[in-house]
């Protein structure tokens, strides 16, 4: 297994961008996890603050960790087009130059917080690309109680990502950003990814997580698994639950030595 630090100019973003990659021993034949960071993080954060490389080695998977600033991994209305970059340009590059797989069965996507929302959004908007989705400490952010109209917009999600007026944003029901709308638009015939969600009981996004879990559970055709635990919106939780996610994904009895404390 190897670790790569990739810096490349993106024609989509029109910007030099960074991606951290953990390569399985046989990348073409191994699952590949697109792992997304949270708001205020970058491409290096998962590798620095969790043992993701150790877990990846244990399960024999590749992990791709892009940096996407505060874009919510979307094509920003005012800003670079991260969704197009992540769904088109980057996988083409990774496949062509690093041999990473494009097959649905070998691709999964997951993330924390802003990245959890991003994983659900991209996974459900592009269900033909992924066989599994993981969402840690997040959900449909548009219904989260912290994001009410007329409040400040420190991450620019309302004004820059969604292109809405922050004083009078039209959030709910937006077909591009409201996860419930995206969920409702899923074609029943298409193969759907399995979805995993986890949230800590002391997490300020707990309600948002529960509301989202309810909707996902109610979908007639979407395989869905949800768990809560002690813990808050922090890296102790995410280090533990990326492991739980990988356990669930591989559906085996593998256990890892618990090295993180709470």
């Amino acid at each position, binding site marked *: 297994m190897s670790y790569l630090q990739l810096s490349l*100019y993106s024609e989509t973003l*029109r910007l030099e961008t960074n991606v951290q990659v953990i390569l399985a021993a046989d990348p073409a034949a191994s699952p590949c996890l697109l792992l997304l960071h949270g708001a205020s993080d*970058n491409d*290096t954060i998962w590798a620095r603050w969790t043992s993701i490389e150790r877990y990846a080695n244990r399960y024999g998977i590749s992990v791709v960790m892009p940096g996407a600033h*505060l874009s919510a991994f979307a094509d920003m209305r005012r800003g*670079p087009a991260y969704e197009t970059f992540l769904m088109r340009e980057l996988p083409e590059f990774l496949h062509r130059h690093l041999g990473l797989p494009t097959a649905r069965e070998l691709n999964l996507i997951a993330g924390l917080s802003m990245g959890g929302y991003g994983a659900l959004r991209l996974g459900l908007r592009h269900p033909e690309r992924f066989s599994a989705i993981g969402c840690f400490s997040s959900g449909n952010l548009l219904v989260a109680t912290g994001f009410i109209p007329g409040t400040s917009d420190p991450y620019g999600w309302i004004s*820059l990502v969604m292109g809405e007026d922050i004083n009078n944003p039209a959030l709910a029901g937006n077909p591009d950003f409201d996860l419930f709308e995206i969920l409702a638009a899923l074609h029943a015939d298409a193969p759907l990814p399995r979805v995993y969600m986890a949230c800590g009981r002391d997490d300020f996004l707990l309600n948002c997580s529960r509301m989202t879990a309810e909707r996902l559970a109610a979908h007639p055709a979407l395989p869905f698994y949800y768990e809560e635990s002690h813990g808050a919106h922090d890296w102790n939780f995410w280090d533990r639950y990326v492991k739980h996610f990988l356990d669930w994904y591989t559906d085996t009895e593998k256990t890892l030595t618990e090295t993180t404390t709470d």
Partner: protein
Amino acid sequence: MANIIFHSLSPALHTQRRLRVILPDSRRNDTNLPWLLLLHGAGADGSRWLRMTRAEYYAEAKGIALVLPDGDNGYYTDMRHGYKYYTYLSEDVEADVLRNFPSLSRDPQRRYVAGFEIGGFGALKYALDFPDHFRAAGSFAGGLDPQSLDPDYCVLTFGSYKQAWQAENDLFNRLRTALTDDTRLPDLYISRREQDYLYTVPDRDFASDNAMTSGHTIKVSRFDFNSADPWSFADRSLAWFLDRICPDRAQLFTPPAAADCPDDCHTDCSDDSLADCPTGKPTKE
């Protein structure tokens, strides 16, 4: 050279940011290092300076440290629809350097700022806002005319063309004003592209006779610019700039070949300032 990538959380940008710091081996024991804050152009990041030019080699030859922030496509400006890249530059990068790199000099006489394209704009703006912070500033093909920007990009960055010319971003007028009074200015080194409109629009040419007689130092040079190889221009500009600010160490910039000059010309054009060349010939690659 010691090559460091420093990661930190930027309060202005609300994200983790990389800051690249290059420390010269020849001054390993020095705790008062001269250093150059070097800004990249559009679409690039700090690593591009290191990869596409001999910046690290030049810096080692001159015994100067480099600090290279990542400014995205933010025009080193607090964007109208975007993030606060100027505050990032002037506050967060400054704070990171002061807090974490004690060997980089606090003496303004040992501090320099320069940049390529939008980095040239950023460097000049920073130098004009904080003239006491720097000994010299450099602008290489500086994007000093916001009106030449892609319209969509201009709207995101400044709000509109009209707003792009608001006082603090109109570097032409700010310079003209500063040059006519006794304001202390860093020494300025401007490298312009052969094809630059600046050369053909005299009233916008701030490097005029007024400037030269006001006691300020402004040097202007023009290099060939091949749009298929923009970093070559940046490389030559950096070498030229470093020769100007650190003249006592290894010469990096090669003056033009004498074969192109008339036989009866006795001007020493190694300074490559246009004003010195009687034939008006531009400096050649």
